[in-house]
């Protein structure tokens, strides 16, 4: 065993330093949409790389190509592996999309805080609202709640995408989520499409149509414009900012609040986030 693999006395769970990654074997790649793939990773000798909590992130690196922070899309209740759903949009993600099962990458983490699944969310009715690739961070929470179904009330999932082909995790949504008692899935796509008999329209307008009561906690993730209008809609429905959670995302290098990149005022998104309640977001200077 190399020096790097010994657990660090300073940083439990990490091998010596939080900046040193583990080697991860890609054991499966699923094509979700034309530009999103889900990568399953394990230790080369088998087993999970580390334990994480729903909402936490990890740094994924291809040596010589780049390294970036991604939300862990698999639930901690999965005991065998971790998954990342990654959209092709830059140098590193382009390279990842060209890789195959059996290839090795580097992963370090987990980083950041998590959705309060064992405290503030426990016993609550939950409303998940996601747009596009932003389902990735919510999927870890949704599956955590589904695997601990008795701890949560009614679960509504409102998920929208540009087209039916851009819906991530469609198989799991249709086969698992839609068939779980007490779980209501509301899918929508931006424009009509042949073969789609579901709802058509943007997520914020569908949210208004669905007219949820405020006896639930909302978890909202998506592109900034979607967040803005959904938040407005939730406010109109009477939701308090303390009832709505989201995740923020900024450029990160270290993942531990030291490299100076991802701060918004006094908060570091990598360390103090990525999960924030909207009353906490309102406290931040307008620079995100």
């Amino acid at each position, binding site marked *: 065993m190399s020096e790097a693999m010994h657990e660090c006395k300073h940083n439990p769970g990490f091998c010596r330093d939080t900046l040193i990654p583990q080697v991860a074997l890609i054991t499966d790649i699923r094509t979700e949409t034309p530009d999103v793939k889900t990568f399953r990773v394990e230790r080369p000798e088998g087993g999970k790389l580390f334990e994480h909590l729903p909402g936490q992130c990890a740094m994924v690196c291809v040596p010589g190509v780049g390294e970036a922070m991604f939300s862990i899309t698999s639930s901690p209740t999965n005991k065998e592996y971790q998954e990342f759903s990654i959209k092709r949009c830059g140098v590193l993600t382009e390279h990842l999309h060209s890789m195959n099962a059996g290839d090795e990458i580097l992963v370090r983490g987990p980083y950041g805080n998590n959705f309060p699944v064992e405290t503030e969310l426990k016993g609550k009715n939950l409303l998940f609202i996601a747009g596009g690739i932003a389902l990735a961070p919510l999927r870890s929470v949704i599956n955590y709640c589904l695997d601990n179904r008795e701890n949560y009330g009614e679960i509504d999932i409102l998920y929208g995408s540009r087209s039916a082909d851009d819906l991530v995790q469609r198989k799991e949504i249709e086969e698992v989520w839609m068939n779980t008692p007490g779980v209501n899935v509301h899918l929508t796509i931006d424009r009509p499409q042949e073969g789609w008999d579901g709802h058509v329209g943007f997520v914020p307008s569908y949210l208004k149509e669905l007219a949820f009561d405020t006896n639930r906690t909302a978890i909202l993730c998506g592109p900034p414009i979607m967040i803005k209008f959904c938040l407005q809609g939730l406010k109109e429905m009477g939701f308090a900012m303390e009832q709505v959670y989201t995740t923020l995302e900024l450029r990160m290098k270290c993942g531990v609040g030291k490299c*100076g990149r991802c701060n918004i005022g*006094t908060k570091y998104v990598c360390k103090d986030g990525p999960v924030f309640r909207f009353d906490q977001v309102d406290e931040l200077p307008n620079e995100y």
Partner: protein
Amino acid sequence: MLKIKRSDLGTLFAKIAENNELYLPVKAAGKTNFAAWDQDADVDLDTLKTVKSPKDAFFPQSEGLYSCDREEGKIKITAEKLQDAPFVVFGIRACDVRGIAVLDKVFLSQPVDTYYAARREHGIIVSYACGAPETSCFCKVFGIDAAQPEGDVVTWMVGEDLYWDAKTEKGQKLTAQVAELLTEADAALVAAEQEKIRSIIEKLPNSHLSLEGWGAEAAKTRFDSPIWEQLYKPCLACGTCTFVCPTCQCYDIKDYDTGNGVKRYRCWDSCMYSDFTMMAHGNNRTSQMQRFRQRFLHKLAYYPANNDGMFSCVGCGRCVDKCPSHLNIVKVIKAFGKEGK
């Protein structure tokens, strides 16, 4: 209190170097910076401020983190060896010693940066009081006493003697190694020198800057001030201020292709640069005004908010001396003071 003749310092440095790596201010090509000592080094204890701060000794401008090699298609990671030998940094000024305390709060807070922690564990700081503070100095504003620096050993140059006072266990250990070269001394002469230093500082133009309104509260009260828009304009985004600063800690992590593997290293970076926060999907600080505001609010508001009110400026004045646009933290502090906001 101990002392050694200035003319015997070469012998002292050689003695220290027997058991420790030694770094001290060395003049090369007309510029003085901290560098490794050797017999031929042009040691310069007269220049008040080295061009770069001595933070390199603990947080190097560039350092390896680990290397990746491929063996039969498998990736093998080898972590960079941590500092495990003692080293001495001689001649650090009071402001720069505080600068290290500022970095400590970043790198030694959870999760601990082990590269930095190992250097702090093995590094011995021999500080050096400022005989002749300059007009760009304003350390007093941050409660730093240039006549009585912190450090494992504190030294003063009085006349032709260097006075030596060990303050910590590490300092005493180092003192024991060089004890044969040191003689007992009268502390009264040091006290007189301190009086002289403090009276110079009292009269420096920026020694009485008001920090009123700065600190944690400024994160909210001064973020949206129109003053930033007026102030930032001469900023060239060159990043000089961040590279000479003893407290700037922003870093980048990059890969170096060695030809048969990849070496991952980190190096200083600057929040003043336009690509610092750029992502594939956007950038949250697109204007130089935003980047300028980030740097100064970090020093004067965000850092204090997260560290019990401690400022992450130490008043060394390097940015005052080096900014090509004559823009610096003193101007920022004054601009807000004038407006009384």
